[in-house]
């Protein structure tokens, strides 16, 4: 079993073990799951380091497994590989999975099923980032839906069924388009193949209309996942209803699959269509940035605010993807994906910490927490600042790279308008900070609130360290990705 397969199978093995454990053995179930996710965490970080020193200079596909024949009659292959755009996302997935599992220790209801589903989810996520065969890619893409559906639908909040079904059906709706596009690619290739690497070459030779259709179909599937405005409304519902750890995964990893899919599949595969659609994609990005920020400002629920801020932040990615000819913008997009995963993951963890104690997330219910919970407030403030793009933290690096890069590569007015997001971002974040952490503290109401505990600190500390590190010294992460991205940009500009 190669390293990439191990990323997928260890969580699966963990799932099987968890299912064999008696359901009363909650402690054993929890630690088995954490153990099963620590292996991929270690492997993914080891791969990151190895790729950085061994392959980052060339940016080629590494750790390739296969292609082995799987269903020969259809020419379906088992084919895995990782390069500069999947490696950081694998590490992010590994990290966030382990942290979310740790943050799930407070789950008491149907513990066994919860952790089993979680591990299945992790396997699916890892699989999407390493699959190089469309059949495999599609399977992993769909496999994630099921555990996610149950995780929201069973362990969620008051409107969990609605949110879970909405998430499931909306994503499935997108997947259908993807399936059709994959079939078009399959039947137009000779010999018929589902190998992504081959199709990247042949896809660009499709007739223009067909390219456009495939591009749009893939775009719908990926855009729903990102989510791109106006496909975003499943996100706030899913986030608000999902348990904390699931929100972390949802924001930290699942959203990235959309942008990853664009970078991996539809952008390099259909350059002619991309060229004509670039403006509209950047436009959707710009709308997302401003719209998400404005709607965030109106939120009364802390979690919903963070959810809408994701719409705004993923808008930056879309703006950059519209400016695909700029290496800086695309690097900024990847950087934003990682950075948003860290920051928003942490914000959801922290909102969960507060919800756990206060049993409400209503912004207006709080006030003055800064004086009662100094440590918690400082950490929250740290990530709030990271979210509004304070220099020295990762969000700033990606925003600046995206702005500077896309300025020369798409409509400049569009970029100029998007910059407004910087002010609006500051506005909604600071309003939230003021209402929750500053002002008078209501001793009668919140006198019993306790500080963040050690386990919770352990879960957010790695995220703080990484946010600060790549914010202060972004070079390693940029170097890790840039060679691969330059190759992809060459493909996109054919």
């Amino acid at each position, binding site marked *: 079993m190669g390293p990439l397969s191990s990323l997928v199978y260890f969580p699966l093995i963990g799932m099987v073990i968890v299912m064999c454990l008696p359901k009363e053995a909650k402690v054993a179930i929890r630690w088995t799951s954490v153990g099963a996710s620590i292996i991929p965490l270690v492997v993914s970080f080891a791969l990151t380091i190895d790729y950085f020193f061994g392959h980052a200079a060339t940016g080629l596909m590494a750790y390739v497994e296969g292609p082995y024949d799987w269903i020969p009659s259809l020419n379906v292959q088992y084919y895995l590989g990782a390069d500069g755009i999947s490696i950081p996302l694998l590490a992010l997935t590994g990290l966030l999975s382990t942290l979310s599992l740790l943050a799930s220790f407070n789950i008491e209801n149907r513990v066994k099923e919860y952790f089993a589903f979680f591990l299945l989810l992790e396997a699916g996520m890892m699989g999407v980032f390493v699959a190089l065969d469309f059949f495999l890619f599609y399977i992993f893409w769909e496999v994630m839906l099921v555990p996610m559906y149950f995780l929201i639908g069973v362990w969620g909040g008051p409107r969990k069924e609605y949110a879970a079904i909405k998430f499931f059906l909306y994503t499935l709706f997108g997947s259908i388009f993807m399936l059709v596009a994959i079939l078009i690619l399959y039947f137009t290739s000779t010999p018929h193949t589902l190998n992504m690497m081959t199709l990247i070459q042949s896809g660009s030779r499709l007739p223009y209309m067909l390219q456009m259709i495939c591009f749009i179909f893939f775009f719908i599937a990926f855009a729903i996942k990102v989510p791109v405005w106006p496909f975003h409304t499943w996100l706030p519902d899913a986030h608000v209803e999902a348990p904390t750890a699931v929100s972390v995964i949802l924001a930290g990893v699942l959203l990235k699959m959309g942008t990853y899919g664009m970078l991996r599949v539809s952008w390099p595969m259909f350059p002619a269509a991309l060229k004509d659609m670039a403006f509209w994609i950047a436009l959707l990005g710009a709308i997302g940035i401003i719209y998400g920020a404005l709607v965030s400002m*109106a939120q009364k629920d802390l979690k919903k605010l963070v959810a809408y801020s994701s719409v705004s932040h993923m808008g930056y990615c879309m703006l950059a993807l519209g400016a695909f000819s700029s290496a800086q913008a695309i690097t900024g997009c990847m950087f934003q994906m990682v950075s948003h995963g860290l920051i928003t993951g942490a914000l959801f963890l922290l909102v969960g910490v507060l919800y756990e104690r206060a049993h409400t997330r209503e912004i207006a219910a709080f006030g003055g927490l*800064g004086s009662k919970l100094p440590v918690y407030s400082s950490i929250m403030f740290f990530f709030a600042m990271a979210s509004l793009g304070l220099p020295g933290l990762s969000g700033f690096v990606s925003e600046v790279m995206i702005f500077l890069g896309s300025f020369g590569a798409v409509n400049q007015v569009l970029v100029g308008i998007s910059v407004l997001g910087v002010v609006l971002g500051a506005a909604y974040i600071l309003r939230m900070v003021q209402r929750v952490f500053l002002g008078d503290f209501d001793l009668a109401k919140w006198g019993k609130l306790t500080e963040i505990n050690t386990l919770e600190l352990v879960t957010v500390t790695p995220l703080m360290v990484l946010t600060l590190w790549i914010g202060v010294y972004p070079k390693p992460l940029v170097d890790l990705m840039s060679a691969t991205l330059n190759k992809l940009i060459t493909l996109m500009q054919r």
Partner: protein
Amino acid sequence: MTQTAWIIPFLPLLAFTMIVFFLRWKEKVASGFSIAMIVIDWVLSLIILAEALGRHGASYEAKILLTSFKTFNLELGILIDPLTAMMLVIVTTVGSCVQIYSLGYMKDDPRFSRFYAYLSLFLFSMLGLVLANNYFMIFIFWELVGLTSYLLISFWFEKKTAADAGKKAFITTRVGDLGFIVGLMLIAAYCGTFNYQGVFEKAASGTVPVGILTAAAIFIFCGAVGKSAQFPLHVWLPDAMEGPTPVSALIHAATMVAAGVYLVARSMPLFVTSADASMVVASIGLITAFIAASIGLVQNDIKRILAYSTVSQLGYMIMALGLYGYDTANGEHSAGYVAGTLHLMTHACFKGLLFLGAGSVIHAVHTNDIQEMGGLRAKQPRTAMTFMIASLAIAGIFPLSGFWSKDEIVASTAHHPLFFVLTLTIAFMTAFYMWRLCFLTFFGQPRNQHRYDHAHESPGTMTWPLVFLAALSVCAGWVALPWLEHGFSSFVYHGEPHHAEPEYLLMIVSTLVSLSGIGLAWLMYHRKAISADQVAAKFKPIYTLLYNKYYFDELYDLIIVRPIVNLGNKLWSFDANVVDGAVNGTAWLTVVWSDAKQWFDATIVDGAVNGAGWLVRQSAAGLRFLQSGTLQFYALFIAGLVAAIGLYRYFGISYTPTTTGLVTIFFLIGLIVLWYVSRSIWRRSTPAAAAEVEEHSVRVEDK
């Protein structure tokens, strides 16, 4: 020392880290460590200044690569030239004074250590900003000083006004930064580098269109407008006075707000390429200086008067720099650059002093309202003395520091009559409002006996920094004595070294203007020869307008804040109703559609199937009576049939479709008649059997 200057910002950063992680609970150690770091920085800065003086204007640059892209590199680096050296000394001097002063001022604050941590973080950012060698890096530190400013304004965050003020400061300056970012994008796109030297060379080379340079310069200036509280973004600075007074002195008077001026001075080679951009800068500076000075005339909050004074003086500096750029672009000599930078330095000394003095007063009387003070000279001799020295300096009285820098500013407006007149008007207003403040605070009778009785001179940690800064306020301008051969102007001068002849007439005029301002304040507030209330009543509309600060806050609230908040709310309901409505609507339509199909399926399709079965059953139930088993009936049936055929043959009807049809119909009618007859016969004959049949047919129907 110059080569290791990068260490300067890291010392306060070290202090910040140490306090946050290790010294939080040891207040004395925390403050001591923080002060030690900044004092070391101060010494290092003086050495660097000395070395810069020794180099005669040559600059030193060192850089490391942060990350590189195809088109250009992002670097970290330091640039030390006379301007940097001067700024370093200003920041560390005021920084040291403020930190020592805070020992007394913040003594009993529950978050004492945190205060020092924030101050250290601020100094790290500010020193980094000053040392930066490129636009990208200055922007990073630019944002970081914004953060620390926010933290320190909202330091007493339990107070709603303080929390509001911090938020307002952050967001307002970010509006300016928006322009800064666009400026950065233009520079990146057209100059291909962020390095100051690289950008200026590119700008001077003439390869970049003038329109682009103008736009870039104006957009960068937007950043300065936000940070230096220039019109129309000046509204945050007076509110920022909610922060502790040492913070006001350090950040909102002497250093951070001067960063905008520094940025314009630093970017001067860019501005001299565009007369238009420079004129924008000069005009904004003038408008700001005038508006703020006029508001300062009528305010009663000691810190707010000083805040408006700061805004006004910053406007002065910006105006001088703008005029320099304009004149130079038109090929004329101008004193503006020297004036702006010199005033930046002298202003830091006397405005820092004024704020610390105000803090000392507030510490004693526990109010900011000057109408409740009066006669404090007797209670706080040292504070009063130093405060008055600073007031003389800012009014521009010979030979204090403000005199020399203001004189240069007035001289720089020489080619522009409108600027000249308004500059003198502002000088008059400045002298007036500062001395109004002095007379109301330190002279006359106490207007609130209770507060007066409890007033006392502040401890030594607070007054010694005052004395030190007072000495600087007196002397700092002497570096620019016009009789010096190698004075300030040849040190900091941008472009060709330039030595101006002293202009005695100008000096006399500006001194007279200042003296008349002080004189009027004396008449109104000390001699009471003119009643201030009567003047206010006479010019009621103007007074009201000034007292309400030209209604800027109300205006912005009405045309910006509310619309944006409303838009947010509207978009949210749009999101929930329209965007999500479309999603839910699609789902609803799908459900309705499947319901309709379900109904169609159950009623029509299944109905047809069931209907067919029903028809068969019904007809079977009827026809079965033909099979009655009654011999006579069969015989009758056969006889009838034979008769029919016989008739048919007999009349020789030919086989045509019509006849066949008719015959068939008759035959069927006959059959039905027969069936009916036989059924009634059969029923009458066997009633029991009939009942059984009825029951059977009901049972079939049930199924």
